[in-house]
């Protein structure tokens, strides 16, 4: 007993010395955090990883040039500070001399050069490398036209890194916090090849290092003793559990086996609200849930009044309050609110009283050539999921009740759905959702560019494309923001999509986890947490 109290006292002294606020509550003796993490991550190779589950783990394992604070603000990561050239195309980063890999090697500018080149090298088979296309020559390298060595990234010294862009990119600093821009440890990649990211091989530069992995079960990280801020890292070990089944995840949380869930089952939200409301953490998330109109086929091809009528005739308040019930915000536009340097574009009709909106919707429906004797019959396609189904049923009911539209619901398995949506032959109205890759409006705007690969509505407005292309090379923050806002306003007038709601992130977080804050990107770093005693 005596010894334990001593170790707690020593820990408190260490924490006080490290400059942490004096702990009001006592820290748990065992600093081992258990997080539910959704689907199994397919890889821990930062340049090949895709999907949210792996990005959660990678944030603990690696550190990019920039990082983010618990509230989501951009903060220095492996770089302490940076200089930006006057034209906004050359960034010079000054790295932390103290930064170390988990095997003790220093983290140098060369590691970042190697990492970024590897990321854009088509031989790496990265699915995310396009995110780096603002770096000079990146696009040509991804297309296989130039060698990776031609990338606009250069080590000016052991701790000085220069990145040259093809055009000013105001969101570059945020991008550098994406796993595609993480450095990798060259010696271990060269030694182990494809398998460098497996336990025992992986050398990382973040606050944690990979200890063990049991596929489909868990990834086990331990504190990286060489991390530059290691003295301030309180949690010693983190488990990321693969939790595909949300009800089971909640039960494991209730049994005290998890401190943190990845999601919550929609069917139990009411119970959670009644019984564990304080542990239920919901926050605005950088994503939009919407339905797309296929603009290449009837009935939506060239029929703006019809698209507008349908968009106006659904009551989003009912959908978010009665169907999804998580505090989502109804969406009338495309870029979610809260995006950095952007003002949400809301169409005028969104603020009309419901009666007026309905009257206008009915008028437009009639103008489009439909009516009680000649009702519109459409197919609404969504990927198989209980939640998508509930929303589709609600939308179909609203369209029937308010306009008399006969909606035929069709669900398809995910991969089949992706293919039909992409082919644009049989789709009419289809479900879609988009989560931003970085905190900038462009990650949304570009999706509706006529050349974009996931523009499944086939929206094609040269004026919209031109505004986006102007914004992409615009160095002035204000001007760029105006261009993107103008583009969205224009797009909303064409109504290629029917926005429904803005996503929220939702999870259970144990009151024992100290230091948790919600943020729009839903980025969390274990190094910022402490586990309190019960």
């Amino acid at each position: 007993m005596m010894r334990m109290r001593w170790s707690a006292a020593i820990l408190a002294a260490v924490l006080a010395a490290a400059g942490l606020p004096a702990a009001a509550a006592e820290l748990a003796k065992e600093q081992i955090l258990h997080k539910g993490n959704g689907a199994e991550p397919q890889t821990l190779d930062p340049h090949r990883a895709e999907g949210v589950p792996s990005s959660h783990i990678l944030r603990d394992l690696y550190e990019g040039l920039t990082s983010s604070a618990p509230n989501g603000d951009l903060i220095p990561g492996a770089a302490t500070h940076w200089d930006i050239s006057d034209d906004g195309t050359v960034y010079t980063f000054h790295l932390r001399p103290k930064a170390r890999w988990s095997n003790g090697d220093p983290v140098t500018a060369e590691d970042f050069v190697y990492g970024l080149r590897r990321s854009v090298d088509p031989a790496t088979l990265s699915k995310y490398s396009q995110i780096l296309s603002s770096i000079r020559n990146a696009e040509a390298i991804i297309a296989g036209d130039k060698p990776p060595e031609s990338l606009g990234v250069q080590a000016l010294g052991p701790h000085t890194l220069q990145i040259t862009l093809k055009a000013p990119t105001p969101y570059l600093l945020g991008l550098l916090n994406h796993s595609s821009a993480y450095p990798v440890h060259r010696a271990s990649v060269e030694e182990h090849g494809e398998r460098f990211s497996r336990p025992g091989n992986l050398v990382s530069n973040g606050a944690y290092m990979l200890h063990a992995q049991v596929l489909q079960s868990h990834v086990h990280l331990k504190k990286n003793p060489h991390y530059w801020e290691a003295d301030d890292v309180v949690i010693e070990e983190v488990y990321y559990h693969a939790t595909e089944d949300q009800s089971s995840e909640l039960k494991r949380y209730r049994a005290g086996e998890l401190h943190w869930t990845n999601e919550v089952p929609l069917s139990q939200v009411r119970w959670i609200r009644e019984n564990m409301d304080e542990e239920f953490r919901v926050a605005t998330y950088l994503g939009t849930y919407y339905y797309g109109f296929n603009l290449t086929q009837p009935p939506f091809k060239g029929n703006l009044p019809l698209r507008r009528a349908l968009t106006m005739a659904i009551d989003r308040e009912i959908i978010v309050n009665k169907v999804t019930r998580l505090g989502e915000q109804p969406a009338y536009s495309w870029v979610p609110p809260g995006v950095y340097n952007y003002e949400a574009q809301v169409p005028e009709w969104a603020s009309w009283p419901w009666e007026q909106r309905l009257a206008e919707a009915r008028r437009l429906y009639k103008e489009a050539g439909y009516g009680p004797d000649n009702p519109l019959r459409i197919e609404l396609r969504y990927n198989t999921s209980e939640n998508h189904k509930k929303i589709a049923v609600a939308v179909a009911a609203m369209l029937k009740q308010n306009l008399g539209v006969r909606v035929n619901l069709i669900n398809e398995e995910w991969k089949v759905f992706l293919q039909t949506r992409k082919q644009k032959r049989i789709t009419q109205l289809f479900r879609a959702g988009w989560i931003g890759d970085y905190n900038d409006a462009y990650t949304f705007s570009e999706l509706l560019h006529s050349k974009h690969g996931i523009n499944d509505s086939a929206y094609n407005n040269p004026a919209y494309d031109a505004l986006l292309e102007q914004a992409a090379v615009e160095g002035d923050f204000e001007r760029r923001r105006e261009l993107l806002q103008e583009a969205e306003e224009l797009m909303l007038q064409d109504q290629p999509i029917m926005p429904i709601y803005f996503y929220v992130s939702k999870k259970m977080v144990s009151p024992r986890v100290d230091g948790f804050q919600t943020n729009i990107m839903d980025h969390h770093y274990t190094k910022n947490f402490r586990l309190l005693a019960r």
Partner: protein
Amino acid sequence: MLRYALRRLVGAIPTLLVLITLAFFMIRVAPGGPFDSEKSLPPEIEANLNEAYHLDEPLWQQYLRYMGNILQGDFGPSFQYREYSVNELIAQGFSVSLTIGGTALLVALLVGCTLGIIAALRQNRPTDYAVMTLAMTGISIPNFVVAPLLILAFAVGLGWFPAGGWEGDSLAKIVLPVIALALPYIAYISRLMRSSMIETLRSNYIRTARAKGMPERVVILRHALKPAFMPVLSFLGPAAAAIITGSVVIEMIFGIPGLGRYFVQGALNRDYTLVMGVVVFYGILIILFNFIVDLLYGALDPKVRYD
């Protein structure tokens, strides 16, 4: 006996070939490919991916390549878990499924047979009705209802066992999944055992044994048990193959890294090699278990001859 065994094994080869061929083409016919995702891929990278996995070759060439690899025991690299080979994934998943499934099968066999015999001996009496009601309930309530109830009662409520997961060396983590997995099998086996035991007890040689004044225990255990067990044995072949290759429902609910989850996820992700690997592996197991059961028949039943 040896000739029979050889003949059976050789006879299994065409079955496996048909299985592999059918599975190979069926998974390829399914719409969507392994690299389809909400993200669109740059053409160069898509081409590289297709090349790395030989998807750029004509289908018949891919088929021959796959057959060639399988003959060498190589199921190829997984599409989904790019750093792992399918052989590794099957080995990992199967060891887990075998632990849980094997234990569940053993439990089901012991409990099911015991219950079945007791019910048969107390035919049409309250004990019999109680056991059969229990068995009927076991069959009709599906796993995905029983498992969460078990978790709520014994993990969330009483805190005796973990609610899920597969970390640590403690045996406590397998208790609930084994119970959930064994329950329907207990039900089947006890019903099978009961009816065949009742039938056996009516046969002439049992009456003779009783007439000779043998103790009931000896009559049941030495004379009736072996023949009464035959229907259970033939049920065990496919049942064993099914139970040890993993139940995706149980694995999802308890968060167990078993083979069933790889199979379902492989199919959903169009991980061609992983799905094929599991199908072939499962096929081999079924053939193998049926073969073992047939051999056991001969050992237990002198009426069975292998020529």
